[in-house]
């Protein structure tokens, strides 16, 4: 592909830097430094830093977006004083949290207590490395990107439970256990809904899945799967109405009750990273990724970085939907949540797999104008 991608840009920067640094070293080292391996390594590093910065900024913008949206749903304004329309408010909040003392309860387990926020943060951010934001804007095009993303996404309950247990607090422990139960329960419908997408697209590669949606976006045939996926994502992201692990009415702050200052900020930021990842997955799997329908005038899709722009617009709108749900529904109970997951979502997801298979079969029927390109 001739367009500049994020990775090729990082590669160029790395090569440029190494080529200029190499002069100071003797010849054998010089040769090794300018070799492809080192360039690739540095390029990956630069790529990671750019990605981290972009994801963090997007995350903080997401918090702003939620605050503003939620404010309007509730007949109030949301953040509005720091920066234009409160855009910088979350940076200010972050600074405030950064300046706060981080402390550990005396009877908390040291390793688990310190490790869990970091691990939670890392496992959340690292998903960005494999999500294709636009054509060419991903780190690696592995054949099983989708599965990898979901696997990393489901690490979280482990670290949540670790941190909750380690902080030696009853509320935290209850919250952690709820979190583990809830996330494990909702892995199943999510994966089944994803299976429907995979059946329809014939690939586990996210880029391929997006490209397969060039004729129609998958939400139309897979509406049931979309509902299941959205519900499951709400549960995985622990948002109202499924935010039982941090149900503040009974559990104070749930599993992160004992965390304060920057540690809390880590948890909170990682939460929003996960919200962003969830919204992006919805866009990738069901809403056509960075593509727009063909009847859209080409002026809207041809400007520079149009793919990323439309992609982010979609992701933010999907997250707006999550905010809308948060503004209108109360939180449900653990047993009801599990019942909803196993009794309603799993059958619906299975049904949607069958529907996807039917759609594929219909494509192969000659009377409907067989489109044999489906499937891999």
């Amino acid at each position: 592909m001739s367009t500049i991608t994020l990775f090729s840009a990082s590669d160029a920067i790395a090569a440029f830097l190494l080529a200029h640094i190499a002069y100071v070293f003797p010849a054998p080292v010089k040769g090794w430094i300018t070799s492809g391996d080192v360039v690739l390594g540095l390029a990956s590093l630069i790529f990671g830093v750019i990605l981290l910065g972009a994801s963090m900024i997007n995350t903080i913008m997401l918090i702003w977006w939620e605050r503003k949206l939620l404010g309007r749903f509730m007949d109030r304004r949301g953040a509005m004083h720091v920066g234009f329309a409160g855009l910088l408010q979350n940076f200010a909040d972050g600074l405030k949290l950064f300046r706060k003392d981080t402390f550990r309860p005396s009877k908390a387990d040291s390793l688990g207590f310190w490790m869990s926020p970091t691990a939670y943060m890392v496992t959340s951010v690292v998903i960005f490395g494999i999500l294709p934001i636009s054509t060419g804007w991903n780190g690696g095009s592995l054949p099983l990107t989708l599965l990898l993303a979901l696997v990393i996404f489901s690490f979280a309950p482990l670290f949540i439970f670790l941190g909750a247990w380690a902080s030696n607090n009853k509320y935290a422990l209850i919250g952690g256990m709820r979190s583990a139960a809830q996330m494990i329960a909702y892995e199943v419908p999510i994966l089944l809904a994803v299976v429907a997408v995979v059946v329809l697209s014939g690939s586990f590669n996210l880029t391929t899945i997006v490209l397969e949606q060039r004729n129609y976006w998958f939400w139309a045939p897979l509406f049931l799967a979309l509902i299941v996926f959205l519900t499951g994502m709400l549960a995985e992201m622990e948002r109202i109405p499924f935010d039982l692990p941090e149900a503040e009415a009974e559990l104070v702050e749930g599993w992160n009750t004992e965390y304060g200052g920057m540690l809390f900020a880590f948890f909170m930021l990682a939460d929003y990273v996960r919200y962003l990842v969830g919204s992006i997955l919805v866009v990738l799997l069901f809403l056509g990724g960075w593509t727009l329908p063909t009847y859209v005038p080409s002026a809207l899709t041809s400007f520079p970085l149009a793919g990323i722009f439309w992609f982010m617009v979609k992701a933010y709108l999907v997250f707006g939907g999550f905010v809308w749900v948060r503004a209108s529904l109360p939180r449900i109970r653990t047993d009801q949540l599990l019942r909803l997951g196993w009794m309603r979502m799993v059958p619906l997801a299975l049904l949607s797999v069958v529907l996807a298979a039917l759609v594929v079969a219909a494509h192969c029927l000659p009377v409907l104008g067989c489109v044999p390109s489906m499937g891999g």
Partner: protein
Amino acid sequence: MAEPAPSPPGEAPGTEEKPLLWVTRPLATAARQFAKSLWRPSTVIYPFERLEDPKFRGEVAVASGRPIGVGEIWDNYRGVHALNINTCISCNLCAFSCPDVCIEMVTVPGGDPKHPKKCPQIDYGKCSFCGFCSDACPEGCLSMTTRYELTAHKREEMVYSPAKMFEVYKSKLPMNPIRVERPKNEDQILLDPPICIGCNACARDCPTQCITMLDIPKTTPKPGEKVPKRIWKEPVINDSDCVRCGTCISVCPKDCLFWGTRQ
């Protein structure tokens, strides 16, 4: 035992209207509010938009679809007191009526040296803004305004001296226009004449100058009593001017004044 009555029709609203779908109605309600408040939510950006600003009241009322304006009758608010030092008669009634004992009468310049003028000083750290003091004020010089911002860095700053409250008065804030209906009070200050020594303390300290010492012909001294060699005087209280502050009772050295009803 309470009679267990089945819920009559119409007494349990909402039960008859079943939701169409799970969550559609709450979602629609929130969305409607979103559309309504998109341009102008009904919250107030407090330090910049103020309810006491008349222009602003209308704006909020129109924008948020409220039936009445925000803070429409703001002037009745019971806020910081305004004190008109010039008309204060030092009657002490405000201090007596204060349930929190936060009013202290302090000397202000303006009185004659023998009888210094005293005006109320209010400790807002204790004040509960009940308005009993301004209700009790017979001259209407202590009144409550719409000022409500009382933050201070030190406790001493919460104590408002008469001069400070006079500045509040001079700032022309809207005064509380509510005048309290005073019940007719038949109790008066009465005199127990045999005990009175005519010392003039009550007339001297009366804030409204409604006590005059009149010559009383003291014709029949009690047997064995030593008759002072001076003219007997007794206080006579002009009842229409009396504000019933009780100052005369408290200064009377012989406790010969008391509350009662004239037959």
